[in-house]
């Protein structure tokens, strides 16, 4: 693997870029690994990387049914933030944010983490109360998040419409300056390259058909499109498809998979400096480094694995964007696409051990998994290596659905009276 440096870049430029080597080898499966990770998205590849780097476990395979990074890692709107309300969530996402800040250097791969600030708009008194609650909690948790008046919000994001007679007037905003975006594909590629460099096998185009358990109930390996592969530890990190795979290990999950759509506009010169989210009108927008407006929509109402999604939702999302940013009315949508997100009853992730010995899971991120990538990967690697929860992922158990100790960020932002 070539180390990326200014020198290597120049040298290769002068030799016609002919000498670059593969960023990760195309591995064929061995018969046995210490750990198998199902799903080569950012989360799975990251977990493999941290297993190798921090726990010295390098006999690891990451198995992907398609191409690495082709699931939700490559389909999301790349928003990264950590201004969550509950201590559990703030702890996890802020841990991720700490890792994001050094990720390019650590991986020797520019994931283009851009600290441009994430601004969340308040459109009614209930939003204001809810955001204030977040800001106060974040402050005491050491997470940056501050309140902006409408005028300050407009100054931070000039295309914003703050007219008081708007259908959804902006009554203020919560801004996390340290938050931002990253180049989603590069996260998967960077982790893949760094993991492969430490000996991890990345096996693409290899569907995992089922998880096999032994007579003692513990996992024994996975049946795949390329044959049976043994491992005593298996971590499933397959986003929307998690419940299907877990079911093969006789573990039913509190998960439902929904189509989530997103879209981009044609590229234009820089006009949008930050990330803006409005949960009330369902508009999520930033501008990519290529110039496209990247816009997130909501989930369709029914569960689906079709990655298709309907038109009404897109119409609503675009209308919402034009409501908040009326100058974009004549911009054009370039393409829209769908992903499949797995959602838990409390909309928080499940991250850690399962009742099945040797089986670990990382799922249930809903629409917000990208931002957690390094944090989830890092703590999952810990749990897999030590067979015990990391203090940060400890609350994100499966058991909470039995006992009632839910981590319900969405309910905490309960709808208005």
């Amino acid at each position, binding site marked *: 693997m070539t180390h990326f440096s200014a020198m290597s870049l120049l040298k290769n*430029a002068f030799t016609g870029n002919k000498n670059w080597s593969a960023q990760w080898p195309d591995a064929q499966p061995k018969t046995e690994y210490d750990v198998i990770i199902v799903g080569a998205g950012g989360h799975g590849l990251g977990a493999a990387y941290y297993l190798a780097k921090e726990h010295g476990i390098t006999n690891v395979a990451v198995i992907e049914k398609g191409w690495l990074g082709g699931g939700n890692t490559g389909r999301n709107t790349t928003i990264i933030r950590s201004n969550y309300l509950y201590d559990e969530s703030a702890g996890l996402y802020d841990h991720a944010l700490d890792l994001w800040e050094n990720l390019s250097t650590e991986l020797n791969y520019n994931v283009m983490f851009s600290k441009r600030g994430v601004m969340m708009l308040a459109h*009614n008194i209930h939003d204001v109360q809810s*955001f204030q609650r977040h800001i106060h909690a974040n402050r*005491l948790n050491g997470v940056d998040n501050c309140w902006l008046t409408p005028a300050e919000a407009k100054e931070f994001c000039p295309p914003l419409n703050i007219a008081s007679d708007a259908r959804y007037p902006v009554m203020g905003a919560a801004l996390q300056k340290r938050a931002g975006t990253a180049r989603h594909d590069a996260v998967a590629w960077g982790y893949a390259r760094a993991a492969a460099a430490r000996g991890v096998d990345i096996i693409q185009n290899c569907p995992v058909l089922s998880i096999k358990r032994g007579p003692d109930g513990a996992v024994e390996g996975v049946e795949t499109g390329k044959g049976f592969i043994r491992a005593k530890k298996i971590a499933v990190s397959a986003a929307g498809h998690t419940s299907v795979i877990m079911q093969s290990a006789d573990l039913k999950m509190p998960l439902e998979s929904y189509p989530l759509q997103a879209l981009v506009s044609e590229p234009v010169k820089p006009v949008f400096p930050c990330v803006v989210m409005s949960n009330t009108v369902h508009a999520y927008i930033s501008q990519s480094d*290529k*110039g496209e407006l990247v816009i997130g929509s909501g989930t369709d109402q029914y569960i689906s694995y079709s990655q298709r999604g309907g038109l009404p939702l897109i119409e609503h999302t675009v209308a919402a964007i034009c409501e908040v940013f009326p100058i974009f009315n004549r911009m054009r949508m370039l393409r829209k696409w769908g992903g499949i997100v797995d959602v838990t009853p409390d909309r928080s992730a499940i991250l850690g051990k399962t009742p099945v010995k040797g089986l670990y899971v990382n799922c249930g991120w809903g629409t917000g998994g990208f931002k957690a990538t390094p944090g989830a990967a890092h703590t999952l690697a810990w749990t897999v290596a030590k067979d015990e929860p990391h203090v940060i992922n400890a609350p994100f158990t499966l058991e909470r659905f039995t*006992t009632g100790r839910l981590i319900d960020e969405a*309910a905490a932002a309960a709808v208005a009276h």
Partner: protein
Amino acid sequence: MTSFRVKDRGRVKADRPVRFSFDGVAYEGCEGDTVASALLANGVHLMGRGFKYHRPRGPVTAGSEEPNALIGTSRGVGRFEPNTRATVQEIYQGLTTESQNKWPSLKFDVGAINDRLYMLFSAGFYYKTFMWPRSFWDKVYEPFIRRAAGLGKAPVDVDPDHYASRYLYCDVLIVGAGPSGLAAALAAAQTGVNVVVVDEHAEMGGSLLSEPSVGINGKAAWDWLEATLDELGRLPNVRLMTRTTAIGYYHQNMIALCQKLTDHLAELPTDAPRERMWRVRAKQVVLGQGAIERPLVFDGNDRPGVMLASAAQTYLNRYGVKVGNRPVILTSHDSAWYAAFDLADAGAKVGAIVDTRNDIQAALMQQAKARGIETLTGHTATATSGRLRVKSVRVNPVRGGRVGKARTIDCDALLMSGGWTPSLHLFSHTKGSLHWDAEENVYLPGQQTEECHIAGAGRGLWGIAAVLEDGVKAGTAAVRALGHSCDAVRFDVSDDRTGNGVTHKELATDRSPGRAKAFIDFQNDVTAKDIRLAVREGMRSIEHVKRYTTNGMATDQGKMSNMNGLMIASDALQKEAPQVGLTTFRPPYTPTTFGTFAGYHKGSHFELTRKTPIDSWAEEHGAAFEPVALWRRAWYFPKAGETMHMAVSRECKATRESIGIFDASTLGKIEVSGPDAVEFMNRMYTNPWTKLAPGRCRYGLLLGEDGFIRDDGVIGRMRDDLFHVTTTTGGAARVLNMMEDYLQTEWPDLKVWLTSTTEEWATIALNGPNARKLLAPLVEGVDISADAFPHMSVAECTVAGFSSRLFRISFTGELGFEVNVPARHGRALWKKLMQAGRQYDICPYGTETMHVLRAEKGYIIIGQDTDGTVTPQDAGIGWAIGKAKPDFVGKRSLSRPDIVARDRKHLVGLLTDDPKIVLEEGAQIVTDPNQPLPMKMIGHVTSSYWSEALGRSIAMALVAGGHEKMDQTLYIPMPGHTVAAKVTGTVFYDPAGERLKVE
């Protein structure tokens, strides 16, 4: 300036000149021209710059797939638009256009320095660099990268245009009005079924518009076209729509169409929408989208003047424009030969036809010879020259795989054809499978998932006769699927231009391929070398290649570039194309304005605003409003000079001391009716209902099955078998839906019916010691004296002559009544009460005062003091649970281990040590304010107000183990200071409830 307009050619109206401008220069075109055809007619090829290297570019196509000739257009304030395809935008008198992505000018662009650093800016270079030193990323590199982004400039003003939408149902939708689509329409229309034909161009006809020499049924192509459109246009069951693009193919044959209505007009008609979204539901769909010509990949294939041969043919035959006087043709397909012939016939001096193939049909060779055109078969192109316009092309013979000696041919246009790619975008939206035709190197439609038929060039067919026949077949199949039979439609085609060709990866070269600037994605400046580099770096899926190089991610969405990229990637990987993959086409087919998607939903129509019957009175009396769910509610009624705080204090005081009047119409109301109504209520709500007598009401609490509080409200029993249920404003629809769910699916045996009456009634609340005095004289049909009509009573009566449901309830702690009257009388009743209340200085109050008054009494607001994680015990309203009831929704969850845990958050009162300090709602609570970050938070303030009645601040808070922390001092750390407060009960005012009993 030389004119390249050819007399007597084209369909534009030469006698109707149209003036427009490009980059500040005035030009003249003809009615029917696009910006591109008009500029080409004026000899202008340079219309844009590439994204990364800023190389000069001209139009390469004549259609919506154009990657290069993207311009900004404007027509006055708010009507600027970036990235418009010059090849599609029709000109009109006064149209103003400008080029993009250049500085200071299109001809001299500083950004072109990037072209010199070509080797450095290889695919994926971003990921390998800009990391040292780390701090430079935020401050230096990223701002630099972002400044280089984008093509055109975003609009800066609000768009004054309006956008429309329609739903349309039809039997057969035909997408594309080229020969296959029209043939399908003729076949289908004769059966009388409903047929809709759409085409993205201003005129129907598709390839026929560019091929006038073909004869159909004894007529010249254009005469046949005119007759056919006339015939179809006359049929009542046929709708023809031009300038209408099918942008997306959704579930169960729903096609979204974008119809452009006014972008071609010089004068904008009053009330006309600019664009309209059609949501068409078709029983059958015929896709006749044709095929798109592929560019050839060779060094310098991007100079202005290098374009697709079919585009040149279109410019000539449809627009009457010669794209050059000395064109050279470079092709691997027969189709380009006809372009050469047409241009020669129009007076151009064709420099040569360079074909990569060795064996060419004799007929073509003959025709070339007859026109004196030199033919170079078995040749490749290895370079071009010319900075702002192509000047020459360097060609070499290829024999046995060896590239021979070069020769340079001068030219002013280089017309290329690398074969044709079937246009299957919409089909792939359906997730229909594609199969790889290894012979022709194309993907063809495979298994279908929707009721659709693909016709013509989309199935890889070539030549007008074959395409017409296929169109008939598709049209016939469509109507057959609908149960109709139709007569055979036959076409007799003469002078058809059939042919075939081969496809290539990069063309062979005698120069270092590593130095070649052989472009694949013209707009994103992706070259063949970039694709190979991506593969070398381990990108083995075409999706990886695409994302690593950005090939196919330009505004043409890969229409120009995907297949060439795939051919080269599969060559580099030594794999068959299907094993490398296929990038998925996504809607929309062509970029579509946000306005079209938003449609009518802008401004006040973005989402409707619900207003009560009394809203207009509040507005007339200067109320400030707050949005609550879809409603707007009067928030407070400021008098001149009053702040919100002053107004609320005054409203509170007036209500506590005399009487206040409040519009409660937004509260949800549900009639629960039927012999099993009481049983149903017992199962839904936590409270017991059996013993509630008719004429009495009770506070009702509704949980989710998870045990958390969902809603509450006062519920009156009107009869044994009838309850008047009220819900929170935001909860009305949700509660009704939840009730219906249980009733219909869990307890269908119960004889109960639910009817929403939220909007049947206007609801006015009167609160204060003078409430009865005011009301009594107006009430008929019930005695509302304290004894006869005690607290928590309900009766049917008349109030001020209006039939009414009258409740004696209180959400303020004062003597209170709620009057429900038919909605149309709400405002009239309000006015009567205001008038009658004048003697008591009646005071209208809004939601803010309501919040303060109820907080003084410790009444909770669902969604403010609870947040979806709060149980009745947590909220201190465990008394509302019918302990003796065996079951109700949510009961089982209340005994889960973590729901009965002692450390749960309880709702308590908080009184600040300093009574003047009003806590911030949402502020967090700790036991030790001196601990380091992150602090251990034990709760937060849910409600906090200045209480005028108590002369101090009050607050409610959810605090861990709060019920056991009575009288303890807790701390609220704020930025820069900490507030101390004592835990109390939640009832701050009149804890004994004496004020309800006022006579």
